[in-house]
Protein backbone atom coordinates (compact mmCIF):
# COMPACT_ATOMS: atom_id res chain seq x y z
CA UNK A 1 0.00 0.00 0.00
CA UNK A 2 1.34 3.36 -1.03
CA UNK A 3 1.45 6.27 1.33
CA UNK A 4 -1.28 8.89 1.30
CA UNK A 5 1.19 11.53 0.14
CA UNK A 6 2.09 9.47 -2.89
CA UNK A 7 -1.60 8.92 -3.65
CA UNK A 8 -2.28 12.67 -3.55
CA UNK A 9 0.73 13.31 -5.78
CA UNK A 10 -0.50 10.75 -8.31
CA UNK A 11 -3.97 12.28 -8.36
CA UNK A 12 -2.56 15.78 -8.87
CA UNK A 13 -0.42 14.44 -11.69
CA UNK A 14 -3.49 12.93 -13.35
CA UNK A 15 -5.15 16.35 -13.18
CA UNK A 16 -2.46 18.04 -15.28
CA UNK A 17 -3.76 17.08 -18.76
CA UNK A 18 -7.24 18.13 -17.68
CA UNK A 19 -5.91 21.48 -16.45
CA UNK A 20 -4.12 21.95 -19.75
CA UNK A 21 -7.29 21.17 -21.70
CA UNK A 22 -9.32 23.57 -19.57
CA UNK A 23 -6.79 26.36 -20.05
CA UNK A 24 -6.78 25.86 -23.82
CA UNK A 25 -10.58 25.87 -24.03
CA UNK A 26 -10.79 28.98 -21.86
CA UNK A 27 -8.16 30.76 -23.93
CA UNK A 28 -9.85 29.86 -27.21
CA UNK A 29 -13.23 31.02 -25.91
CA UNK A 30 -11.66 34.29 -24.76
CA UNK A 31 -10.05 34.68 -28.16
CA UNK A 32 -13.18 34.08 -30.24
CA UNK A 33 -15.57 35.85 -27.85
CA UNK A 34 -17.40 38.85 -29.24
CA UNK A 35 -15.80 42.17 -28.35
CA UNK A 36 -12.25 42.41 -29.60
CA UNK A 37 -9.88 43.87 -26.98
CA UNK A 38 -9.10 46.72 -29.34
CA UNK A 39 -12.78 47.53 -29.83
CA UNK A 40 -12.65 49.62 -26.66
CA UNK A 41 -9.93 51.79 -28.18
CA UNK A 42 -11.71 52.28 -31.47
CA UNK A 43 -11.61 55.99 -31.38
CA UNK A 44 -12.29 57.41 -34.85
CA UNK A 45 -9.50 59.94 -34.37
CA UNK A 46 -6.89 57.17 -34.14
CA UNK A 47 -4.83 56.60 -37.27
CA UNK A 48 -4.18 53.03 -38.47
CA UNK A 49 -0.54 53.44 -37.33
CA UNK A 50 -1.57 54.37 -33.81
CA UNK A 51 -4.01 51.46 -33.75
CA UNK A 52 -1.35 48.96 -34.74
CA UNK A 53 0.95 50.46 -32.09
CA UNK A 54 -1.75 49.83 -29.48
CA UNK A 55 -2.14 46.31 -30.79
CA UNK A 56 1.64 45.85 -30.57
CA UNK A 57 1.69 47.12 -26.98
CA UNK A 58 -1.06 44.66 -25.97
CA UNK A 59 0.85 41.81 -27.63
CA UNK A 60 -1.98 41.08 -30.06
CA UNK A 61 0.34 40.80 -33.06
CA UNK A 62 2.27 37.87 -31.67
CA UNK A 63 1.51 34.31 -32.80
CA UNK A 64 -1.39 32.70 -31.00
CA UNK A 65 0.67 30.16 -29.05
CA UNK A 66 2.93 32.89 -27.66
CA UNK A 67 -0.16 34.79 -26.52
CA UNK A 68 -1.41 31.59 -24.91
CA UNK A 69 1.83 30.97 -22.99
CA UNK A 70 1.92 34.58 -21.83
CA UNK A 71 -1.65 34.23 -20.62
CA UNK A 72 -0.93 30.95 -18.77
CA UNK A 73 2.23 32.49 -17.28
CA UNK A 74 0.02 35.28 -15.98
CA UNK A 75 -2.37 32.75 -14.44
CA UNK A 76 0.46 31.25 -12.39
CA UNK A 77 1.17 34.69 -10.95
CA UNK A 78 -2.52 35.05 -10.07
CA UNK A 79 -3.09 37.39 -12.98
CA UNK A 80 -6.46 36.57 -14.52
CA UNK A 81 -6.51 39.35 -17.07
CA UNK A 82 -7.75 42.87 -17.38
CA UNK A 83 -11.35 43.99 -17.38
CA UNK A 84 -11.24 46.83 -19.88
CA UNK A 85 -14.81 47.77 -19.11
CA UNK A 86 -14.07 48.20 -15.43
CA UNK A 87 -10.48 49.35 -15.93
CA UNK A 88 -9.23 47.00 -13.24
CA UNK A 89 -7.58 43.59 -12.94
CA UNK A 90 -10.07 40.72 -13.14
CA UNK A 91 -8.84 39.05 -9.94
CA UNK A 92 -9.53 42.26 -8.01
CA UNK A 93 -13.08 42.49 -9.38
CA UNK A 94 -13.76 38.86 -8.42
CA UNK A 95 -12.06 39.04 -5.01
CA UNK A 96 -14.34 41.79 -3.75
CA UNK A 97 -17.41 39.67 -4.57
CA UNK A 98 -16.17 36.51 -2.84
CA UNK A 99 -17.13 37.43 0.77
CA UNK A 100 -20.82 37.85 -0.14
CA UNK A 101 -20.89 34.54 -2.00
CA UNK A 102 -18.96 32.76 0.75
CA UNK A 103 -21.43 34.03 3.35
CA UNK A 104 -24.50 32.89 1.38
CA UNK A 105 -23.14 29.57 0.15
CA UNK A 106 -21.34 28.75 3.41
CA UNK A 107 -24.46 29.32 5.50
CA UNK A 108 -26.56 27.19 3.17
CA UNK A 109 -23.97 24.43 3.01
CA UNK A 110 -23.62 24.16 6.80
CA UNK A 111 -27.40 24.11 7.26
CA UNK A 112 -27.98 21.61 4.48
CA UNK A 113 -25.27 19.14 5.47
CA UNK A 114 -26.35 19.04 9.09
CA UNK A 115 -30.10 18.92 8.43
CA UNK A 116 -29.75 16.59 5.43
CA UNK A 117 -27.60 14.03 7.28
CA UNK A 118 -29.75 14.25 10.42
CA UNK A 119 -32.96 13.61 8.46
CA UNK A 120 -31.29 10.75 6.59
CA UNK A 121 -30.30 9.07 9.87
CA UNK A 122 -33.82 9.48 11.29
CA UNK A 123 -35.20 8.01 8.05
CA UNK A 124 -32.78 5.09 7.95
CA UNK A 125 -33.58 4.00 11.52
CA UNK A 126 -37.06 3.05 10.29
CA UNK A 127 -36.76 2.61 6.54
CA UNK A 128 -40.00 2.60 4.49
CA UNK A 129 -41.94 4.03 7.45
CA UNK A 130 -44.42 6.84 6.88
CA UNK A 131 -41.86 9.52 7.77
CA UNK A 132 -39.22 7.95 5.52
CA UNK A 133 -41.63 7.74 2.59
CA UNK A 134 -42.71 11.32 3.10
CA UNK A 135 -39.12 12.64 3.24
CA UNK A 136 -38.09 10.54 0.24
CA UNK A 137 -41.02 11.94 -1.73
CA UNK A 138 -40.39 15.53 -0.65
CA UNK A 139 -36.68 15.44 -1.45
CA UNK A 140 -37.29 13.80 -4.83
CA UNK A 141 -39.73 16.58 -5.65
CA UNK A 142 -37.26 19.16 -4.35
CA UNK A 143 -34.59 17.95 -6.73
CA UNK A 144 -36.97 18.09 -9.69
CA UNK A 145 -37.97 21.70 -9.12
CA UNK A 146 -35.97 24.54 -10.62
CA UNK A 147 -34.42 26.31 -7.63
CA UNK A 148 -34.77 29.77 -9.05
CA UNK A 149 -38.52 29.32 -9.43
CA UNK A 150 -38.70 28.45 -5.72
CA UNK A 151 -36.76 31.67 -5.13
CA UNK A 152 -39.24 33.68 -7.18
CA UNK A 153 -42.15 32.05 -5.34
CA UNK A 154 -40.48 32.79 -1.99
CA UNK A 155 -40.06 36.45 -2.91
CA UNK A 156 -43.67 36.63 -4.09
CA UNK A 157 -45.05 35.07 -0.89
CA UNK A 158 -42.72 36.29 1.85
CA UNK A 159 -41.66 39.65 0.46
CA UNK A 160 -44.53 40.61 -1.84
CA UNK A 161 -47.60 39.35 0.02
CA UNK A 162 -46.49 38.99 3.64
CA UNK A 163 -43.73 41.64 3.54
CA UNK A 164 -41.69 39.71 6.12
CA UNK A 165 -38.41 39.89 4.26
CA UNK A 166 -36.72 42.30 1.85
CA UNK A 167 -37.00 41.42 -1.86
CA UNK A 168 -33.28 41.19 -2.41
CA UNK A 169 -29.81 42.61 -1.98
CA UNK A 170 -27.61 42.34 1.07
CA UNK A 171 -28.49 45.47 3.02
CA UNK A 172 -31.20 48.10 3.20
CA UNK A 173 -30.26 51.15 1.17
CA UNK A 174 -29.38 54.24 3.20
CA UNK A 175 -29.19 52.33 6.44
CA UNK A 176 -26.08 51.70 8.53
CA UNK A 177 -24.78 48.15 8.55
CA UNK A 178 -26.38 46.02 11.20
CA UNK A 179 -26.10 42.30 11.77
CA UNK A 180 -29.86 41.91 12.07
CA UNK A 181 -30.42 43.64 8.74
CA UNK A 182 -27.91 41.29 7.09
CA UNK A 183 -29.67 38.26 8.57
CA UNK A 184 -33.01 39.47 7.27
CA UNK A 185 -31.55 39.71 3.76
CA UNK A 186 -29.77 36.39 4.08
CA UNK A 187 -32.81 34.46 5.24
CA UNK A 188 -34.75 33.87 2.00
CA UNK A 189 -31.87 33.08 -0.40
CA UNK A 190 -30.13 30.81 2.08
CA UNK A 191 -33.41 29.02 2.91
CA UNK A 192 -34.11 28.30 -0.74
CA UNK A 193 -30.55 27.12 -1.35
CA UNK A 194 -30.58 25.04 1.82
CA UNK A 195 -33.84 23.37 0.87
CA UNK A 196 -32.46 22.29 -2.50
CA UNK A 197 -29.18 21.09 -1.01
CA UNK A 198 -30.86 19.27 1.89
CA UNK A 199 -32.69 17.19 -0.72
CA UNK A 200 -29.38 16.15 -2.27
CA UNK A 201 -27.62 15.39 1.02
CA UNK A 202 -30.64 13.51 2.34
CA UNK A 203 -30.92 11.23 -0.68
CA UNK A 204 -27.21 10.47 -0.94
CA UNK A 205 -26.76 9.79 2.78
CA UNK A 206 -29.94 7.74 3.04
CA UNK A 207 -29.03 5.47 0.13
CA UNK A 208 -25.50 5.11 1.53
CA UNK A 209 -26.91 4.16 4.94
CA UNK A 210 -29.42 1.66 3.56
CA UNK A 211 -26.67 -0.03 1.58
CA UNK A 212 -24.39 -0.32 4.61
CA UNK A 213 -27.20 -1.64 6.81
CA UNK A 214 -27.10 -4.95 4.92
CA UNK A 215 -23.46 -5.58 5.80
CA UNK A 216 -22.30 -8.29 8.20
CA UNK A 217 -20.80 -5.94 10.77
CA UNK A 218 -24.20 -4.30 11.18
CA UNK A 219 -25.77 -7.70 11.85
CA UNK A 220 -23.03 -8.28 14.43
CA UNK A 221 -23.77 -4.95 16.09
CA UNK A 222 -27.48 -5.81 16.17
CA UNK A 223 -26.72 -9.25 17.55
CA UNK A 224 -24.80 -7.63 20.41
CA UNK A 225 -28.15 -6.19 21.42
CA UNK A 226 -27.50 -2.56 20.55
CA UNK A 227 -30.50 -0.35 19.93
CA UNK A 228 -31.28 0.43 16.28
CA UNK A 229 -30.36 4.10 16.83
CA UNK A 230 -26.95 3.13 18.18
CA UNK A 231 -26.40 0.73 15.28
CA UNK A 232 -27.27 3.35 12.68
CA UNK A 233 -25.42 6.26 14.27
CA UNK A 234 -22.31 4.53 15.60
CA UNK A 235 -21.72 1.76 13.10
CA UNK A 236 -23.63 2.69 10.00
CA UNK A 237 -23.06 6.40 9.59
CA UNK A 238 -19.27 6.41 9.51
CA UNK A 239 -19.26 3.85 6.75
CA UNK A 240 -22.15 5.39 4.86
CA UNK A 241 -20.73 8.88 4.54
CA UNK A 242 -18.77 8.27 1.33
CA UNK A 243 -21.50 9.54 -1.03
CA UNK A 244 -22.07 12.50 1.29
CA UNK A 245 -18.40 13.36 1.11
CA UNK A 246 -18.53 13.15 -2.68
CA UNK A 247 -21.45 15.57 -2.64
CA UNK A 248 -19.51 17.93 -0.36
CA UNK A 249 -16.64 17.85 -2.85
CA UNK A 250 -19.09 18.74 -5.61
CA UNK A 251 -20.41 21.62 -3.50
CA UNK A 252 -16.96 23.14 -2.89
CA UNK A 253 -16.71 25.19 -6.12
CA UNK A 254 -20.09 26.75 -5.43
CA UNK A 255 -18.64 28.29 -2.24
CA UNK A 256 -16.50 30.50 -4.47
CA UNK A 257 -18.46 30.50 -7.73
CA UNK A 258 -21.85 30.95 -6.15
CA UNK A 259 -25.18 29.83 -7.48
CA UNK A 260 -25.55 32.30 -10.31
CA UNK A 261 -29.31 32.02 -10.84
CA UNK A 262 -30.29 32.18 -7.17
CA UNK A 263 -27.96 35.13 -6.66
CA UNK A 264 -29.56 36.90 -9.62
CA UNK A 265 -33.09 36.19 -8.36
CA UNK A 266 -32.26 37.71 -4.97
CA UNK A 267 -29.88 40.36 -6.40
CA UNK A 268 -27.26 39.05 -4.00
CA UNK A 269 -24.01 40.95 -4.78
CA UNK A 270 -21.83 37.86 -5.12
CA UNK A 271 -19.70 36.18 -7.77
CA UNK A 272 -22.75 34.60 -9.44
CA UNK A 273 -24.38 37.97 -10.05
CA UNK A 274 -21.03 39.33 -11.22
CA UNK A 275 -20.84 36.60 -13.87
CA UNK A 276 -24.30 37.34 -15.21
CA UNK A 277 -23.64 41.10 -15.24
CA UNK A 278 -20.34 40.50 -17.02
CA UNK A 279 -22.25 38.39 -19.55
CA UNK A 280 -24.70 41.22 -20.24
CA UNK A 281 -21.85 43.71 -20.57
CA UNK A 282 -19.88 41.33 -22.79
CA UNK A 283 -17.01 41.68 -20.31
CA UNK A 284 -15.51 38.34 -21.26
CA UNK A 285 -12.27 38.58 -19.26
CA UNK A 286 -14.32 38.77 -16.04
CA UNK A 287 -16.72 36.04 -17.15
CA UNK A 288 -13.94 33.66 -18.13
CA UNK A 289 -12.01 34.49 -14.96
CA UNK A 290 -15.00 33.42 -12.88
CA UNK A 291 -15.35 30.27 -14.94
CA UNK A 292 -11.67 29.42 -14.58
CA UNK A 293 -11.80 29.78 -10.81
CA UNK A 294 -14.98 27.71 -10.54
CA UNK A 295 -13.54 24.96 -12.73
CA UNK A 296 -10.31 24.92 -10.75
CA UNK A 297 -12.21 24.48 -7.51
CA UNK A 298 -14.32 21.74 -9.11
CA UNK A 299 -11.11 19.78 -9.64
CA UNK A 300 -9.84 20.58 -6.13
CA UNK A 301 -13.21 19.53 -4.69
CA UNK A 302 -13.05 16.19 -6.46
CA UNK A 303 -9.50 15.64 -5.21
CA UNK A 304 -10.36 16.52 -1.61
CA UNK A 305 -13.43 14.27 -1.71
CA UNK A 306 -11.31 11.35 -2.89
CA UNK A 307 -8.74 11.95 -0.13
CA UNK A 308 -11.36 12.16 2.63
CA UNK A 309 -13.07 9.13 1.11
CA UNK A 310 -9.81 7.16 1.33
CA UNK A 311 -9.27 8.22 4.95
CA UNK A 312 -12.85 7.43 5.94
CA UNK A 313 -13.25 4.00 4.42
CA UNK A 314 -10.58 1.45 5.30
CA UNK A 315 -11.70 -0.73 2.38
CA UNK A 316 -10.57 1.84 -0.17
CA UNK A 317 -7.10 0.79 -1.12
CA UNK A 318 -5.30 4.00 -1.94
CA UNK A 319 -2.57 2.00 -3.61
CA UNK A 320 -5.13 0.77 -6.15
Amino acid at each position, binding site marked *: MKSLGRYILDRVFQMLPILFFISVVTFVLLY*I*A*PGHPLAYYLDPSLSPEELSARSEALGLNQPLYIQYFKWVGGLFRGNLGWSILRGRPVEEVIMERIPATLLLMGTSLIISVSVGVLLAVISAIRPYSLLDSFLTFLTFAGLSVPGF*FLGILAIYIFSGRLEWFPVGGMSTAGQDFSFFDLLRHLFLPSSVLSFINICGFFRYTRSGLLEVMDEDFITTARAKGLSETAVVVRHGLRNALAPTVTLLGIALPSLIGGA*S*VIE*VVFSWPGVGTL*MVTALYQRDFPVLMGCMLITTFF*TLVGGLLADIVYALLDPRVNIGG
Partner: protein
Amino acid sequence: MRLKTKGSKRFLIGIIFLLFFSLVPLLARYLSPYEPDALDLFNIEAPPSLAHPLGTDALGRDVLSRFFYGGRVSLLVGFLSSLFSVGIGTILGSVAGYYGGKIEIFIMRFTDAMLSFPTTLLALVLSPIFNRYLPDLPSVWRLIIILAGLGWPFTCRLIRGEVLSLKESTFVEASRLMGAREAWIIRKHLFPALLPTVIVSVTFGVANGILAEAVLSYLGVGIRPPTPSWGGMLEEAKDLVTLTSMPWLWMPPGIAIMLVSLSVNWLGEGLQRRTRSY
Protein backbone atom coordinates in the same frame (compact mmCIF):
# COMPACT_ATOMS: atom_id res chain seq x y z
CA MET B 1 -39.61 -5.98 -18.04
CA ARG B 2 -41.72 -6.23 -14.93
CA LEU B 3 -44.63 -3.88 -14.78
CA LYS B 4 -45.75 -4.16 -11.18
CA THR B 5 -43.18 -3.06 -8.63
CA LYS B 6 -42.96 -0.61 -5.78
CA GLY B 7 -43.71 2.94 -6.81
CA SER B 8 -46.16 1.88 -9.51
CA LYS B 9 -48.50 4.70 -8.57
CA ARG B 10 -45.86 7.38 -9.06
CA PHE B 11 -44.84 5.78 -12.35
CA LEU B 12 -48.44 5.90 -13.56
CA ILE B 13 -48.99 9.46 -12.36
CA GLY B 14 -45.77 10.37 -14.14
CA ILE B 15 -47.02 8.90 -17.42
CA ILE B 16 -50.45 10.54 -17.12
CA PHE B 17 -49.00 13.96 -16.23
CA LEU B 18 -46.53 13.71 -19.06
CA LEU B 19 -49.15 12.66 -21.60
CA PHE B 20 -51.30 15.58 -20.50
CA PHE B 21 -48.44 18.06 -20.67
CA SER B 22 -47.28 16.84 -24.06
CA LEU B 23 -50.79 16.76 -25.51
CA VAL B 24 -51.57 20.32 -24.48
CA PRO B 25 -48.64 21.92 -26.33
CA LEU B 26 -49.07 19.59 -29.32
CA LEU B 27 -52.63 20.78 -29.64
CA ALA B 28 -51.59 24.38 -28.93
CA ARG B 29 -52.94 25.56 -32.26
CA TYR B 30 -56.44 24.24 -31.51
CA LEU B 31 -56.57 25.03 -27.80
CA SER B 32 -55.20 28.57 -27.88
CA PRO B 33 -57.92 31.19 -27.87
CA TYR B 34 -55.63 33.70 -29.66
CA GLU B 35 -52.49 33.76 -31.77
CA PRO B 36 -49.47 33.75 -29.40
CA ASP B 37 -48.25 37.09 -30.78
CA ALA B 38 -51.62 38.78 -31.29
CA LEU B 39 -51.67 42.17 -29.57
CA ASP B 40 -54.67 43.43 -27.65
CA LEU B 41 -53.64 46.99 -26.92
CA PHE B 42 -56.82 47.76 -24.99
CA ASN B 43 -55.98 45.04 -22.49
CA ILE B 44 -52.41 45.51 -21.36
CA GLU B 45 -51.23 43.61 -18.28
CA ALA B 46 -54.84 42.69 -17.56
CA PRO B 47 -55.44 40.20 -14.75
CA PRO B 48 -57.19 36.91 -15.63
CA SER B 49 -60.70 37.38 -17.01
CA LEU B 50 -63.17 35.45 -19.16
CA ALA B 51 -61.73 36.85 -22.38
CA HIS B 52 -58.15 36.15 -21.23
CA PRO B 53 -58.22 33.22 -18.75
CA LEU B 54 -54.61 33.83 -17.69
CA GLY B 55 -54.54 37.57 -18.30
CA THR B 56 -52.32 39.47 -20.73
CA ASP B 57 -48.71 40.66 -20.75
CA ALA B 58 -47.13 44.08 -21.27
CA LEU B 59 -47.92 43.98 -25.00
CA GLY B 60 -51.48 42.78 -24.48
CA ARG B 61 -50.68 39.25 -25.64
CA ASP B 62 -52.85 36.46 -24.27
CA VAL B 63 -50.85 34.59 -21.60
CA LEU B 64 -52.78 31.32 -21.97
CA SER B 65 -52.02 31.13 -25.71
CA ARG B 66 -48.38 31.95 -25.07
CA PHE B 67 -48.34 29.32 -22.35
CA PHE B 68 -49.55 26.64 -24.79
CA TYR B 69 -47.13 27.64 -27.54
CA GLY B 70 -44.31 28.17 -25.03
CA GLY B 71 -44.79 24.64 -23.72
CA ARG B 72 -44.27 23.34 -27.22
CA VAL B 73 -40.90 25.08 -27.44
CA SER B 74 -39.79 24.03 -23.94
CA LEU B 75 -40.71 20.38 -24.46
CA LEU B 76 -39.07 20.37 -27.89
CA VAL B 77 -35.83 21.76 -26.44
CA GLY B 78 -35.92 19.27 -23.57
CA PHE B 79 -36.64 16.28 -25.77
CA LEU B 80 -34.26 17.00 -28.66
CA SER B 81 -31.34 18.15 -26.50
CA SER B 82 -31.68 14.97 -24.45
CA LEU B 83 -31.95 12.75 -27.52
CA PHE B 84 -28.85 14.28 -29.11
CA SER B 85 -26.71 14.33 -25.98
CA VAL B 86 -27.59 10.73 -25.07
CA GLY B 87 -26.92 9.74 -28.69
CA ILE B 88 -23.44 11.26 -28.70
CA GLY B 89 -22.72 9.91 -25.21
CA THR B 90 -23.85 6.40 -26.12
CA ILE B 91 -21.71 6.24 -29.25
CA LEU B 92 -18.56 7.62 -27.59
CA GLY B 93 -19.12 5.60 -24.41
CA SER B 94 -19.58 2.30 -26.19
CA VAL B 95 -16.61 2.91 -28.49
CA ALA B 96 -14.45 3.70 -25.45
CA GLY B 97 -15.68 0.72 -23.48
CA TYR B 98 -15.63 -1.80 -26.30
CA TYR B 99 -12.35 -1.03 -28.01
CA GLY B 100 -10.35 0.13 -24.99
CA GLY B 101 -6.71 1.10 -25.46
CA LYS B 102 -5.67 4.54 -26.62
CA ILE B 103 -9.13 5.44 -27.95
CA GLU B 104 -10.60 4.79 -24.53
CA ILE B 105 -7.97 6.89 -22.74
CA PHE B 106 -8.48 9.75 -25.17
CA ILE B 107 -12.29 9.72 -24.98
CA MET B 108 -12.40 9.35 -21.20
CA ARG B 109 -9.85 12.10 -20.54
CA PHE B 110 -11.88 14.38 -22.77
CA THR B 111 -15.05 13.39 -20.94
CA ASP B 112 -13.45 14.06 -17.54
CA ALA B 113 -12.27 17.46 -18.67
CA MET B 114 -15.73 18.33 -19.99
CA LEU B 115 -17.29 17.19 -16.71
CA SER B 116 -15.10 19.55 -14.68
CA PHE B 117 -16.54 22.59 -16.46
CA PRO B 118 -19.54 24.15 -14.75
CA THR B 119 -22.24 23.36 -17.32
CA THR B 120 -24.58 26.31 -16.76
CA LEU B 121 -21.67 28.74 -16.87
CA LEU B 122 -20.25 27.30 -20.06
CA ALA B 123 -23.70 27.50 -21.65
CA LEU B 124 -23.87 31.17 -20.61
CA VAL B 125 -20.50 31.84 -22.27
CA LEU B 126 -21.30 29.87 -25.43
CA SER B 127 -24.58 31.63 -26.22
CA PRO B 128 -23.09 35.02 -27.20
CA ILE B 129 -20.27 33.26 -29.07
CA PHE B 130 -22.79 31.28 -31.11
CA ASN B 131 -24.67 34.49 -31.66
CA ARG B 132 -21.61 36.15 -33.10
CA TYR B 133 -20.65 33.45 -35.55
CA LEU B 134 -24.09 32.08 -36.42
CA PRO B 135 -26.37 35.10 -36.06
CA ASP B 136 -29.10 33.54 -38.21
CA LEU B 137 -29.39 30.35 -36.18
CA PRO B 138 -32.81 30.34 -34.44
CA SER B 139 -32.43 30.51 -30.66
CA VAL B 140 -34.28 27.18 -30.28
CA TRP B 141 -31.62 25.35 -32.28
CA ARG B 142 -28.79 27.28 -30.69
CA LEU B 143 -30.00 26.15 -27.29
CA ILE B 144 -30.47 22.53 -28.37
CA ILE B 145 -26.95 22.38 -29.84
CA ILE B 146 -25.37 23.95 -26.74
CA LEU B 147 -27.26 21.68 -24.32
CA ALA B 148 -26.50 18.54 -26.33
CA GLY B 149 -22.85 19.56 -26.68
CA LEU B 150 -22.52 19.97 -22.93
CA GLY B 151 -24.72 17.10 -21.77
CA TRP B 152 -23.18 14.05 -23.44
CA PRO B 153 -20.27 13.39 -21.00
CA PHE B 154 -22.66 12.15 -18.30
CA THR B 155 -24.10 9.47 -20.60
CA CYS B 156 -20.68 8.66 -22.02
CA ARG B 157 -19.33 7.75 -18.59
CA LEU B 158 -22.40 5.71 -17.71
CA ILE B 159 -22.46 3.75 -20.98
CA ARG B 160 -18.73 3.05 -20.92
CA GLY B 161 -19.03 1.49 -17.46
CA GLU B 162 -21.94 -0.60 -18.64
CA VAL B 163 -20.14 -1.78 -21.78
CA LEU B 164 -17.05 -2.67 -19.76
CA SER B 165 -19.03 -4.97 -17.49
CA LEU B 166 -21.08 -6.40 -20.38
CA LYS B 167 -17.90 -7.22 -22.29
CA GLU B 168 -16.78 -9.40 -19.38
CA SER B 169 -20.18 -10.98 -18.77
CA THR B 170 -20.71 -14.70 -19.21
CA PHE B 171 -23.25 -14.54 -22.01
CA VAL B 172 -21.01 -12.41 -24.19
CA GLU B 173 -18.07 -14.67 -23.45
CA ALA B 174 -20.18 -17.71 -24.32
CA SER B 175 -21.23 -16.39 -27.71
CA ARG B 176 -17.65 -15.38 -28.41
CA LEU B 177 -16.55 -18.93 -27.62
CA MET B 178 -19.20 -20.25 -29.99
CA GLY B 179 -17.57 -18.22 -32.70
CA ALA B 180 -19.94 -15.25 -32.98
CA ARG B 181 -18.65 -12.30 -34.97
CA GLU B 182 -18.03 -8.87 -33.38
CA ALA B 183 -20.88 -7.21 -35.26
CA TRP B 184 -23.28 -9.94 -34.22
CA ILE B 185 -22.33 -9.60 -30.55
CA ILE B 186 -22.74 -5.84 -30.69
CA ARG B 187 -26.12 -6.09 -32.41
CA LYS B 188 -27.59 -9.03 -30.53
CA HIS B 189 -26.06 -8.69 -27.07
CA LEU B 190 -24.61 -5.26 -26.36
CA PHE B 191 -27.27 -3.11 -27.96
CA PRO B 192 -30.33 -4.74 -26.32
CA ALA B 193 -28.55 -4.80 -22.97
CA LEU B 194 -27.71 -1.10 -23.22
CA LEU B 195 -31.18 -0.04 -24.33
CA PRO B 196 -32.71 0.28 -20.82
CA THR B 197 -29.87 2.56 -19.68
CA VAL B 198 -30.21 4.64 -22.82
CA ILE B 199 -33.96 5.04 -22.40
CA VAL B 200 -33.62 5.99 -18.73
CA SER B 201 -30.89 8.51 -19.65
CA VAL B 202 -33.09 10.09 -22.31
CA THR B 203 -35.93 10.38 -19.81
CA PHE B 204 -33.86 12.12 -17.14
CA GLY B 205 -32.27 14.20 -19.89
CA VAL B 206 -35.64 15.62 -20.93
CA ALA B 207 -36.20 16.96 -17.41
CA ASN B 208 -32.69 18.42 -17.32
CA GLY B 209 -33.19 20.01 -20.73
CA ILE B 210 -36.44 21.67 -19.67
CA LEU B 211 -34.81 22.98 -16.47
CA ALA B 212 -31.79 24.25 -18.42
CA GLU B 213 -34.05 26.02 -20.91
CA ALA B 214 -35.83 27.68 -18.00
CA VAL B 215 -32.61 28.84 -16.32
CA LEU B 216 -30.93 30.10 -19.50
CA SER B 217 -34.03 31.84 -20.85
CA TYR B 218 -34.58 33.42 -17.44
CA LEU B 219 -31.03 34.78 -17.57
CA GLY B 220 -31.73 36.06 -21.09
CA VAL B 221 -29.47 33.79 -23.15
CA GLY B 222 -31.85 30.94 -23.95
CA ILE B 223 -34.92 31.25 -26.14
CA ARG B 224 -35.20 34.83 -27.37
CA PRO B 225 -38.41 36.78 -27.91
CA PRO B 226 -40.69 36.80 -29.81
CA THR B 227 -40.60 32.96 -29.64
CA PRO B 228 -42.58 32.06 -26.51
CA SER B 229 -41.11 29.51 -24.09
CA TRP B 230 -41.81 28.69 -20.46
CA GLY B 231 -38.38 29.90 -19.41
CA GLY B 232 -38.79 33.05 -21.45
CA MET B 233 -42.12 33.72 -19.74
CA LEU B 234 -40.40 33.32 -16.38
CA GLU B 235 -38.00 36.06 -17.40
CA GLU B 236 -40.88 38.49 -16.83
CA ALA B 237 -40.45 37.82 -13.11
CA LYS B 238 -37.07 39.53 -13.22
CA ASP B 239 -38.98 42.77 -13.00
CA LEU B 240 -39.85 43.31 -9.35
CA VAL B 241 -43.21 44.96 -10.03
CA THR B 242 -44.26 42.07 -12.27
CA LEU B 243 -43.00 39.58 -9.70
CA THR B 244 -44.94 41.02 -6.80
CA SER B 245 -48.12 42.23 -8.49
CA MET B 246 -48.65 40.22 -11.71
CA PRO B 247 -48.23 36.57 -10.76
CA TRP B 248 -50.40 35.44 -13.69
CA LEU B 249 -47.51 36.25 -16.01
CA TRP B 250 -44.92 33.93 -14.46
CA MET B 251 -46.68 31.46 -12.18
CA PRO B 252 -48.30 29.19 -14.84
CA PRO B 253 -45.07 28.44 -16.75
CA GLY B 254 -43.16 27.98 -13.47
CA ILE B 255 -45.69 25.51 -12.10
CA ALA B 256 -45.81 23.71 -15.45
CA ILE B 257 -42.01 23.33 -15.48
CA MET B 258 -42.18 21.96 -11.94
CA LEU B 259 -44.88 19.40 -12.77
CA VAL B 260 -43.36 18.29 -16.06
CA SER B 261 -39.90 17.86 -14.59
CA LEU B 262 -41.32 15.98 -11.60
CA SER B 263 -43.36 13.63 -13.77
CA VAL B 264 -40.49 13.01 -16.18
CA ASN B 265 -38.26 12.17 -13.22
CA TRP B 266 -40.90 9.82 -11.80
CA LEU B 267 -41.14 8.14 -15.16
CA GLY B 268 -37.36 7.80 -15.31
CA GLU B 269 -37.18 6.41 -11.78
CA GLY B 270 -39.92 3.91 -12.59
CA LEU B 271 -38.24 2.80 -15.80
CA GLN B 272 -34.94 2.46 -13.95
CA ARG B 273 -36.54 0.17 -11.37
CA ARG B 274 -38.32 -1.95 -13.94
CA THR B 275 -35.33 -2.51 -16.19
CA ARG B 276 -32.71 -3.31 -13.58
CA SER B 277 -33.02 -6.99 -14.38
CA TYR B 278 -29.52 -8.28 -14.87
